């Protein structure tokens, strides 16, 4: 297995399947009275979060503790702007303490790759800017697989602000690695630069028309991405209601989907803007596996920590 988890592309298909299989066992541990495995005893894991996130951080913290590792949380407020102190400075002290793993979330893309070049520890990307969020993609795949089985040939639609979404970037990679078919849907202003060449190179479809996708090529799973209201003031689209009319998973749209795909599922990485990109009905419907995504995150992160840290040193 890879030494760092910086991008979903670091994992082969076999790696992904191994992690998902392991996550299933880790899920069992969560149901026991003694939620502990000795596997990472003696390892030290630092959760270094440059960007706030209660959910992901506590997920990694608990995952590490349940594996018997010593986990420590550090938060760094935008140290990049402090005069004379660089990102490298921030991680240098940690590196000197010979820790085993750094779980890093940063608000700027590429931060984890750079840190990986400066430290001896394994680096796990817990979300870097708008670039990637590999463990999110893994838990999304795990949740989907638990519900509908193997993902080969499954059609997944990812809808929303793709330009600013690390969930989209990681998910497209992991889903394609597992043999799924992916269609991404967004208004033109929220499609990333170069998406035409990119989608062709990586083998996924793009569309500006959610209704057409739901009608002509109904997916087995719809993954709705959070829309940040700041994007409206940035001029990416005019108003919330126009966005919802064009790209929201409204009750009628869900009904259309379920009519042709009764077993279709609804996903969302959270947190949700109920009423904007996803209606409350859709979020709470029987098709929704959103809560499973949350509980799957812990199991997946335990599996990731195990595979990156427990075995022989790779590389």
């Amino acid at each position, binding site marked *: 297995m890879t030494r760092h988890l910086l991008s979903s592309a670091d994992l082969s298909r076999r790696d992904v399947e191994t992690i998902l299989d392991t996550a299933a066992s880790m899920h069992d541990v969560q149901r026991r009275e003694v939620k502990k495995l000795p596997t990472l005893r003696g390892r030290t894991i630092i959760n270094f979060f440059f960007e706030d996130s209660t959910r992901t951080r506590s997920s990694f913290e608990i995952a590490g503790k349940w594996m018997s590792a010593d986990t420590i949380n550090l938060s760094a407020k935008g140290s990049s702007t402090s005069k004379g102190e660089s*990102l490298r400075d921030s991680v240098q002290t940690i590196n000197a303490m010979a820790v085993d793993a750094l779980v890093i979330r940063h608000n700027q*893309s*590429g*931060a984890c790759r*750079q840190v990986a070049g400066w430290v001896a520890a394994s680096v796990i990307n817990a979300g870097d*800017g708008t670039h990637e969020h590999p463990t999110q993609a893994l838990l999304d795949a795990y949740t989907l697989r638990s519900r509908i089985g193997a993902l080969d040939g499954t059609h997944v639609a990812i809808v929303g602000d793709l*330009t600013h979404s690390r969930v989209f970037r990681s998910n497209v990679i992991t889903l394609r690695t597992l043999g799924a078919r992916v269609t991404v849907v967004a208004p033109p202003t929220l499609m*990333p630069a*170069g*998406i035409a060449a990119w989608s062709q190179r990586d083998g996924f479809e793009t569309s500006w028309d959610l209704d057409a996708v739901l009608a002509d090529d109904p997916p087995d799973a719809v993954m709705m991405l959070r829309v940040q209201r700041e994007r409206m003031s940035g001029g990416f689209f005019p108003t919330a209601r126009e966005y919802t009319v064009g790209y929201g998973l409204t009750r009628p749209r869900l009904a259309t989907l379920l009519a042709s795909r009764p077993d279709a599922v609804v996903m969302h990485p959270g947190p949700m803007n109920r009423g904007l990109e996803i209606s409350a009905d859709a979020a709470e419907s029987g098709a929704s596996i959103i809560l499973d995504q949350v509980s799957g995150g812990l199991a997946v992160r335990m599996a990731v920590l195990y595979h990156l840290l427990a075995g022989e040193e790779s590389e």
Partner: protein
Amino acid sequence: MSALLITGARGQLGEPSDVLIRDGVIAEIGRITDAPSDTARIDAAGLDLLPGFVDLHTHLREPGREDAETIASGSAAAAAGGFTAVLAMANTTPATDTAEAAELLYDRGRTVGLVDVQPIGAVTKSLAGQELAELGLMARSRARVRIFSDDGHCVHDARVMRRALEYVKPFDGVISQHAQDPALAGGAACCHEGELSGRLGLPGWPGVAESVIVARDVQLARHTGSRVHIAHISTAESVEILRWAKDRGILVTAEVTPHHLALDTELVRNYDPTFKVNPPLRPSEDQEALRAALADGTIDAVATDHAPHARHDKEHTFEAAAFGMLGLESAFAVVHDLMVRTGRMTMGDLSQRMSRNPAAIAGLSDHGCAIVAGAPANLVLVDPDRTITIDASESNSLSRNNPWHAMSFTGAVHATILRGRLTAIDGKVQQ
């Protein structure tokens, strides 16, 4: 000052010739057998003698960031790179927006004495883009400022740009525009907008943000009958506009950097801030347009945009890291290897782009001169056949943000001569 004799040099002289330099000027060219015994000699067999290079775009960082570079260290890097004159950009701290600030730089450059440091004046006060700086006073000063630039920032207000273009006409000044429409490429923009920026999740810097300003400014130059200069041109679209403008006799000139010629956007794939620069490295289609335009003369000059940065200013995330790369010491090697060794330009063309044209744009009559008796001895000896491998740790610059590390190029500077004095030979700067 004792004399200097260069023997067996090639270049624009036709047959290999000897060149005797005395009192800062070229005294004699030909077969010289009767030089005084105390004459210093340089054996130039196999080397080309060219006018010393002139860099239209250098950042010397002094005053304000002497941890990154000083006039002394920047001058040393320039001398090592074969330059006899550099135009020092105004975005220091404080900015060079007054006559006094310009004279400070000018005097310091003369004191160091390794290269003629010619200050560039800011277009607007504090580079804020709002009010014109004291352009006239800077022009009248001891520093005789002729080029004005807010480089680092674009003069994006059309009215301010128009006024500036008009205002410098009496003293034959020229505005060097950093073409970047902030509404299309803001401060966070750092990677050419395209497939790579999409994949990497980096704020895109689309080529159109440059070309809309170039298009606007050549038309303003036409309207006002002024000269305008485009700094670090980087896109095929800008080159097209440049051709259009020159075809119509608009007084526009342009410079291109060695890094935009040689390095493409793919180098950014691993988020290495060594390759972060403004404007960003572009894809190969843009590079090809730049190379063709430099070869046919549409682009008038090579300028390094030498931008030293202290280590801690680069050791950040890509978005947060400082923009810029070193360039003075490697410029000739890169351009020679890329354009002359491949046959796209002759050595004479290279000399035009790196000496004569920049000297003319800057109004520096002592530099970029033809090599004839009586001309000021601002010269460089280059070896077109020597292959060098760049080692980032060996540099006269105080900084190490060097994108060329471990790369090899054919073409090396052997010696640099400033007003008859040897400033650098075989990589060693002569203090």
